[in-house]
């Protein structure tokens, strides 16, 4: 598909203004405030007058690295997010491919696939907590008495539940992506006598690369920043195997009142995520048309 590298001439900048302005005011400015907080000694004793809280420099960052389980949490978060993304991308794409062509009841099936994503994370967490409790349905079906919500298996419980609730995101994007494939290509494939698998592999999936690559990034970020699900599933303090970053920073800030340290943790992890992300963008050439 030929693609213009871009038109020159008068650019309608005004179309970028509303979105740009909103993002600067509601994300960038608060983010800068958060950076400032990460440099302050802000806790329950100082936060009422946060502007005059003592400046702590990088002490929060060094403290977070040295005295907390930040690196452990980064490791757990990255590990589970990567696994969930790798598991959900094929499921999502398969679901999109299977519901692309018309069949009786397709509308309903398409909608049902959305259910896990429609339920608030807190509800998903509560449901699965009841399913996975020691005498719950999961163990009854498996005839086991395993512990799913603490200990080594809790990591896989988190992967399972997060994958269950987030695959529809990839499915949605892949489904939309399928629609932008030129129908003429199908005819060309048919004329070549290509079977379904050859068509899928050589024509459809390569054209889906853009949407799916985007879906993978978004799903990864979504998993990485998921707070409510692990919070409801395992509670706080979190068992060590599922001590993920958002829960750690939340506890540090809203339960331990160490706002400065918490902000430092979040910003440190943000930087940690952005570096590989930029590399990924280059690799899949997502940002270049």
């Amino acid at each position, binding site marked *: 598909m030929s693609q213009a590298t871009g038109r020159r001439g008068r650019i309608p900048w005004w179309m970028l203004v509303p979105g740009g302005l909103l993002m*600067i005011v509601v994300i*960038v*400015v608060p983010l*800068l*405030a958060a950076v*400032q907080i990460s440099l302050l000694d802000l*806790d*329950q*004793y100082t*936060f*009422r*007058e*946060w*502007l005059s809280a003592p400046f702590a420099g990088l002490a929060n960052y060094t403290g977070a690295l040295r*005295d907390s389980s930040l690196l452990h949490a980064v490791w757990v978060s990255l590990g589970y997010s990567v696994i969930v993304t790798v598991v959900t991308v094929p499921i999502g794409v398969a679901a999109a491919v299977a519901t692309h062509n018309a069949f009786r009841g397709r509308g309903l099936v398409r909608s049902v696939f959305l259910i896990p994503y429609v339920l608030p994370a807190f509800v998903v967490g509560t449901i699965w907590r009841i399913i996975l*409790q*020691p*005498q719950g349905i999961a163990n009854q079906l498996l005839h086991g*008495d395993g*512990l*799913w*919500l*603490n*200990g*080594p298996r809790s990591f896989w419980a988190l992967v399972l539940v997060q994958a269950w609730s987030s695959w529809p995101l990839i499915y949605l994007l892949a489904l939309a992506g399928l629609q932008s494939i030129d129908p003429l290509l199908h005819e060309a494939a048919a004329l070549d006598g290509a079977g379904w698998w050859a068509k899928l592999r050589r024509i459809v999936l390569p054209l889906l690369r853009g949407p799916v690559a985007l879906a993978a990034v978004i799903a990864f970020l979504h998993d990485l920043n998921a707070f409510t699900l692990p919070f409801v599933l395992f*509670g*706080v*303090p*979190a*068992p*060590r195997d599922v001590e993920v970053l958002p829960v750690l920073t939340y*506890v540090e800030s*809203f*339960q*331990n*009142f160490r706002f400065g340290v918490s902000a430092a943790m979040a910003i440190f992890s943000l930087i940690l995520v952005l570096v590989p992300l930029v590399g990924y963008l280059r690799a899949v050439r997502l940002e270049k048309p």
Partner: protein
Amino acid sequence: MIARRGIAVLAGAVLLTSITACSSDSSSGDGAGKTLNVLVSANSIYPQQQKDWFASVSAKFAEQNGGAKVSFETFASPNDELTKIQTAVLAGQGPDVYSLGTTFTPTAYATGAFVELSADDWGKVGGRDRFLPSTLTLSGPDATHEVGIPFTSRPFVMAYNKDMLAAAGIDKPADTWDGLAAQAKQLTKPGQFGLAVAYGDGFDPWKFIWAMSVQAGNPLVADGKASLSDPVTLKAYQTYLGWLANDKVVDPAAVGWKNAQAIAAFGAGKAAFLPMVSATSKVTLDKSAVAGKYAYAIMPTVPPGQSALPANGKAATSILSGDNLVVAKYSKNKDLAYALIKMLTSAEWQETYYKTFGELPTNAEYAKTLQGDAALAAIVDSSSKAVGTPFSGAWSQVQLALVNVVVQSVPNLAKGKVDDAALQALLAKAQSDAQAALDKAKK
């Protein structure tokens, strides 16, 4: 550049907020056109009753205060409440009156965001001496620096299955933890366990450890020093975890139980004792299979490994639990807030509250009339023998450190063991976290 200006604007605006908040404290008397915002916990067991209660409080208050409105706002969980408090304090804008859990009051005090009551202020809420003295323990660090006005009392007790105890020939629950463990062993048989304990709960476990430690003479925090790795505290953890691992008097599934599952097990007649419940458990138990077959008793007050209370121990039956009301410093309707609190802590309204929600009064006059009630005997008894947790701004962190030890011990517990070395390592970590938090508090 833009960024720095953004922060400056933000900062300026915040400053403006605090200035206006300080200068416009109005005096009451005429409440017309004013609205008092009150944040309380949502009651999911008595939702309709709570709505009715809100309505009748509002109506009565408007009548007494020249038409001032009371607007109740609810929060669903303690975490929800914490977030709300923090955002409100930071922005200097939010509810005028908060209902806080007693154990959270020290942290709230540390923020300096709530009004320290002067003698004059106490007068406006009906006088400090209208409250049961014990309920004032967690109002402030000392009698002259108090922020919390006691509203309800929610002491912890133990439920026990009368039929099971009678069948085993036990006439009453033991008053020592060792005795309780022995009774529990006696009551454990196929299909039935002696104790129902929620090891997987995020709130309850520390209350056991605290009670056993205090009874053995270790207050956990004193004079800015934490003593979490003390031998008696280790013993408390060993006892608590040992019920399942060594005594085998708890269902192995309890490693994953939240409070709700423990209550359900007791309610299904699968456990003889259910320690650490409050009076509101009655709602669930009266709908369960053990309705009419259970009673409440105070929990043991003699620490594990002892047959009598040690000289330096305190016979704590429960943490001092319940709710305090606090008034935000930024509130522009302080006098109206005091008027509301005066009304809610009066004997008349405390009675309504108790009869509607089953939570015990803090009003001394009304509390006296409840003492004769046999069904409540254990709960009222526990209320009078409850001991306040240390009044420290870092207490929330200490509490979290105590629970964390249990959470991280659960994988071992699931394998049926209490690993002393692992437990000591966890306790050392808890001790250093708690001490670090206390060190920050002292400066």
